[in-house]
């Protein structure tokens, strides 16, 4: 009854991983952890874990994708540990400046602008600006937003993996989106109306 064991695909020699994968892994880690030293540590931990788990690699995915999966787990672990003690009250009130006192009206109402998603996604200059706006986000908001978008995790899965409650997650994502939107409006989409 047992199926024929799949022949093990030839994975590249781990000795070459630093040359072939380290830069991609480093960029991935730097986007999420921000500090260079943390990103370097995460790359090393990932390659070591990869070395240890090499037999588990069945070649179902590309080797780099597999290593990125390991790295993502390590980053999620860090978020979980850091989030353990955080309550809603302890979250910084990041959206306060968007709202006009007790009236709950927009202080700076969003202007009317739009863009072509495909073109923007390939526009290097746009991404340089995104990087600046993204860098101004509080760390947790940035990490969660990236799990939701770049890593394409469902909100439910982010909650399960990080231990963050659904309500807190929605708040974090809302604040991240609100800040990114406002920053990109001012710097990219309507720069001519800058004071």
């Amino acid at each position: 009854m047992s199926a024929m064991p799949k022949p093990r695909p030839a994975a590249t020699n781990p000795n070459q991983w630093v040359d072939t994968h380290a830069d991609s892994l480093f960029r991935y880690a730097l986007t999420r952890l921000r500090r260079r030293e943390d990103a370097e540590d995460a790359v090393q931990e990932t390659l070591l874990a990869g070395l240890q788990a090499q037999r588990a690699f069945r070649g179902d995915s590309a080797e780099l994708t597999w290593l990125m999966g390991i790295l993502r787990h390590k980053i999620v672990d860090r978020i979980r540990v850091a989030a353990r003690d955080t309550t809603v009250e302890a979250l910084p009130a990041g959206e306060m400046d968007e709202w006009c006192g007790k009236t709950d009206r927009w202080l700076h109402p969003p202007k009317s602008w739009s863009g072509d998603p495909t073109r923007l996604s390939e526009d290097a200059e746009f991404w340089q600006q995104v990087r600046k706006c993204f860098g101004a986000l509080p760390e947790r908001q940035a990490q969660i937003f990236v799990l939701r978008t770049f890593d394409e995790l469902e909100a439910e899965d982010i909650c399960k993996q990080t231990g963050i409650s659904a309500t807190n997650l929605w708040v974090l994502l809302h604040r991240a989106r609100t800040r990114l939107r406002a920053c990109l409006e001012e710097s990219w989409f309507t720069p001519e109306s800058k004071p």
Partner: protein
Amino acid sequence: MSAVFSCREAARLASEAQDHALPMPKRMALRMHTMMCAACRAYERQIILIDTVFCLRAKHGKPDLPTSEGLDAAARERIRARLTQGP
């Protein structure tokens, strides 16, 4: 219960709707609000645009932000040496 609520609440719900299915009454109330309010309508469209642009970049094999920084030679050497010792 009034179907019309504040922009603050509408913006919150517009974001929440990207992460889970809103219950019907909230969904309806949000739609009513954005129909009448250009600012919240813009907000909703623009946050969807930004989420989409991030997802598209990842789909093109770049799940990261551009950086001029690379792994420097010292870090590369350190990691290589550590890997040689084995797990």
